[in-house]
């Protein structure tokens, strides 16, 4: 659609396409959380093109890797990614957020192939992921469980209950990725509830930790390919990201946790994302 650039089939091209479609989705729906969506698009792109063992034709295949979007408010790029990968028709996206739609503004599993778990209230994804990972290990299954968390939801006690549990039970088939964009709902993470020293916290709870640039495709791929990061431990990938990544006026700006782009902003954003229409 937007570009015939020669990298269209590359993961960078895939990622750009996800951003563009997400932008259109949120603009047309006048929904929120575009900043939270854009910060994790590159991570999603690598996951769904290089890492996850999933089969769009068999979304319930038992040995599939599980991906849980715990930061359910950033659902738009996941819906787009799943549609791009063929889990469901792209036309479904046209109804995102609308009356009677099956695609609400927080990620929902009901009737949507490829979505494992519904979230939206924060701090729910990692405990469920622990249950799936523990079951997989006990049953000798080969699947892995990936959970994408926001930094804000690391305020939740339930997240840390799960962090403690996974370390104790040495769930080496569990990978938590924290989209550490440093901005939460009412301010910066540093202002609201500072998580630092963040990586050390996970390490102290028995996890193998990798800190990466969450927009460096090669680094993301290399990191997520080499899991577990440490033998017999769950893996935490602290992905340093930029809220609103890809559109200059959205980057590192709290406003875009809430705002949907108007026509003028939309036009500018399309240019920055390289849309050709």
């Amino acid at each position, binding site marked *: 659609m937007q570009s015939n650039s020669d990298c269209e089939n590359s993961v960078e091209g895939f990622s750009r396409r996800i951003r563009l479609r997400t932008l259109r989705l949120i603009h047309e729906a006048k929904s929120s959380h575009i900043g939270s969506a854009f910060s994790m698009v590159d991570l999603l792109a690598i996951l769904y093109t290089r890492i996850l063992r999933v089969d769009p034709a068999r979304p319930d295949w038992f040995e599939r890797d599980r991906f849980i979007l715990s930061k359910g408010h950033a659902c738009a790029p996941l819906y787009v990614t799943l549609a791009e990968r063929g889990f469901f028709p792209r036309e479904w996206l046209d109804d995102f957020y609308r009356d009677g739609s099956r695609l609400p503004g927080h990620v929902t599993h009901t009737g949507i192939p490829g979505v494992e778990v*519904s979230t939206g209230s924060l701090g729910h994804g990692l*405990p*469920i992921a622990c249950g*799936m990972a523990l*079951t997989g290990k*006990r049953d000798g299954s080969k699947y892995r469980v990936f959970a994408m968390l926001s930094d804000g939801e690391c305020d939740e006690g339930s997240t840390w209950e*799960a962090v403690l*549990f996974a370390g104790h039970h040495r769930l080496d088939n569990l990978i938590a990725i924290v989209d550490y964009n440093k901005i939460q709902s009412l301010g910066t993470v540093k202002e609201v509830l500072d998580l630092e020293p963040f990586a050390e916290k996970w390490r102290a709870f028995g996890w193998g930790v990798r800190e990466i640039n969450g927009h460096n495709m090669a680094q993301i791929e290399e990191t997520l390919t080499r899991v577990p990061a440490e033998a017999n431990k769950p893996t935490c990938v602290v992905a340093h990201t930029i809220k609103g990544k890809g559109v200059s006026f959205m980057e590192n700006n709290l406003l875009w946790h809430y705002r949907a782009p108007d026509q003028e902003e939309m036009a500018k954003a399309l240019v920055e994302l390289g849309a050709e229409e």
Partner: protein
Amino acid sequence: MRGAFFRALLELAKQDERVHLVVGDLGFGVVEEFARRFPARFLNAGVAEQNMTGIAAGMALSGKIVFTYSIANFPILRCLEQVRNDVCYHNANVKIVAVGGGLAYGALGATHHATEDLAILRSLPRMVVVAPGDPVETEAATRAVTAHAGPCYLRLGRAGEAKIHSTQVDFVLGKAIEMHEGRDITLISTGGMLGTAMQVTDILYNAGVQTRLLSMHTVKPLDTAAIESAVRETGAVFTLEEHSVVGGLGGAVAEFLAENWETPLTFKRFGLPSEFSSFVGSQEYIRGRHGLSAEAVALGICAKLEKVQALASIAKV
């Protein structure tokens, strides 16, 4: 009821390898046998009920039948959003078991009184709410919730209650058990008040009031057919529960009657006031302070019925 539950659970686990038990670091002296016999299907999640419930949902979504177990409000209220979102919304095959329903832990104080659980749990979509009346019903209920695909809440009393049923019961989720036939009034009991309800029935019988007694072990789905017959055939309905009068069995019956009955009807809920207990005491003691002894309930029923002679005869006893 606790012993009956674990007896049934061990038997079920032997028959069905999907059956798992996840506890919140409670159950000293009762969970060990399950843990010993089925170590790969047992998990102590620690004192972390939110995580315990999320884990249970994750296990259930991976094909297991998962029982979570703790006491009083811990496996339900502490983690209510996990119960709602992770378990009910996903229709996860999780059975939440709370021991110490009602005032079983009376002397431990109001934090340990599970007296709003039926109201809260029955408001959750998909949740089946079961409060068996004695150990016999408990064993049957444990089998029934295991066979039901989807979320269930099993509210148990404590350990060592007397059996009320002398034989096995025909136990079906959502279908009340008629304990006693009667034509004058109907008394509907849920959970551990069944023993008291039997005594009430005897007292009233001796005072000339023929009481139909229903054990409403399933609060949701409610056996509305049994309630309808009760009203049509006896004309007066009373509910009895070790729970707040707000929203539990009495609330559920009242909702049904208010919408479905045109003619004037005699109805009263016996339960606990919507208050935190300002005193401690044994289960029996606190029940008594709140008018839930058999005599007090029988008197309350007669007063409502304006049966002066019956009142006088009970009061004399």
